[in-house]
């Protein structure tokens, strides 16, 4: 691993971010990455965070038109409430703050505590829970669907709305709508190696893959023999489209994220995207916008995930709105 020590990985990365992005306010000690122009902006602040190891999520999405601040925790470990409160303070422009929380027990509990504390500090806080992963059944027998790729859609679209100056309740409502309209499915071709453990999180022999993985190096719901990119696209898209069918008409346009888990070469990811695009076309699904790349990753895991978001005209317009962050940039 390209690290100094497992204990310093996150601080070291933040130091590097500070060096690479002088336009960002990076507090290495207190682990907050924030826009410099948040205070008294008169805009709603958008805060997200979670365990590290999913880069560029979230710190790479701090900037014009997206997050106002991010609070990266240890690798695969939710940040602590103190950190979240500091991020909220950094993001507060006088109009309150929206927490974008991926649905994991730790994230949910820590953000909940932080919301309470920030509220006590006089910051109005709303929360949106992202839970898009169809590999997990949302039932009494699980911790509920995980938050994965849809986080990017929520952060981008809510960020655009905040940038437009919309009030907290509207930004929060939009964020929830994006989440409700989004579904994901992920596949691992290899495990990943966390700095703390130093070896792969699970054994995956060559020639096998894991279907229905999350973004924390955990195995999926099912192990299968290796498949072609086309077959992987089929098994991944199937459950996503099935759940989306409950949400709106099949032929309504979608935003599409074809996401690499970290170690899948872009060459392969584009090839995979080609298969996904073809399958969607075959089924009459219109792709309004597509994004291909490593955005919501799991350290050095090889694999991919697909996220679809049913997007009406407003969502597409907000998706197209200018964004200027370390990892996502367009417009303006």
């Amino acid at each position, binding site marked *: 691993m390209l690290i100094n020590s497992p204990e310093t990985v996150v601080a070291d990365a933040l130091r590097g971010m500070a060096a690479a992005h002088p336009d960002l306010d990076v507090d290495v000690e207190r682990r907050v990455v924030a826009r410099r122009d948040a205070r008294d902006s008169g805009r709603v602040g958008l805060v997200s965070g979670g365990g590290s190891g999913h880069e560029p999520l979230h710190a790479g999405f701090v900037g014009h038109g997206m997050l106002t601040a991010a609070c990266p925790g240890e690798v695969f470990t*939710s940040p602590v409430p103190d950190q979240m409160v500091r991020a909220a303070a950094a993001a507060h422009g006088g109009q309150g703050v929206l927490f974008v929380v991926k649905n994991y027990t730790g994230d949910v509990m820590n953000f909940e505590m932080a919301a309470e504390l920030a509220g006590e500090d006089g910051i109005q806080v709303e929360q949106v829970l992202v839970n898009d992963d169809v590999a997990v059944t949302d039932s009494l027998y699980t911790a509920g669907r995980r938050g994965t790729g849809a986080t990017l859609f929520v952060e981008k679209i809510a960020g655009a709305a905040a940038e437009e100056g919309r009030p907290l309740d509207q930004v929060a409502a939009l964020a929830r709508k994006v989440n409700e309209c989004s579904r994901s499915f992920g596949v691992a071709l290899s495990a990943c190696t966390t700095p703390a453990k130093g070896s792969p*999180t699970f054994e995956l022999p060559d020639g096998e893959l894991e279907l229905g993985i999350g973004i924390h190096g*955990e195995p999926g719901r099912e192990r299968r023999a290796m498949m072609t990119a086309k077959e992987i696209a089929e098994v991944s898209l199937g459950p996503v489209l099935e759940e989306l069918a409950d949400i709106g008409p099949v032929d309504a346009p979608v935003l599409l994220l074809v996401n690499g888990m970290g170690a899948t070469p872009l060459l392969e990811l584009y090839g995979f995207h080609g298969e996904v695009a073809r399958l969607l076309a075959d089924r009459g699904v219109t792709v309004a916008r597509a994004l291909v790349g490593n955005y919501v990753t799991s350290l050095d895991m090889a694999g991919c995930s697909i996220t679809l978001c049913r997007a009406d005209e407003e969502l597409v317009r907000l998706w197209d709105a200018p964004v200027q962050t370390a990892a996502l940039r367009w417009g303006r």
Partner: protein
Amino acid sequence: MGALTVRDTQFFRRWMAAAADVVRREAARLTELDSPIGDADHGSNLLRGFTAVESALASEPPATPGALLQLTGRTLISTVGGASGPLYGTLFRRAGKELGEAAEVSDEQLRAALQVGVDAVAQLGGAAPGDKTMLDALLPGVAALATSYRAAADAAEQGALATVPMQARKGRASYLGERSIGHQDPGATSSALLLGALADAAGEGS
């Protein structure tokens, strides 16, 4: 358990020192357990937390058992993160609150306080016995405190072992469905270690 024994702040300090020691010794194993059914961080999470607790107790020594447990809880919340941070943090904070400002507490008061703490964990996490979580060690462990510290540690250890055949319904392991069966829950394991540390502090080490 001698009904007349009282526990002073020094006792709680010994507990936390023993807890930090055992977490240091067992961190790698806890992370290893968190690997097949979790995200391979439980050991490093607790190591970070209990190391911070050690410094906090050293730099602002609390005067009472209640204050000590509350500081422990607050420190865990502020440094651990993940699921175990708020859960263990709440356990100690609520138990500490329950102990109030007494300079010494009886074993029964401690048992009752820990029971309140464990109930708060159940409340916060929404888990029930059998869900393959730390509760499966904490509940039998704290119940056995009525017998002795040693009995509590042993019951928690049994509870942790009993998580192996369970299918997880809470936390990350629940994502695996049936594939979570056959692995010991890391949080239940660390709970047993913490109650083992309590037995050590009470001179009832194994």
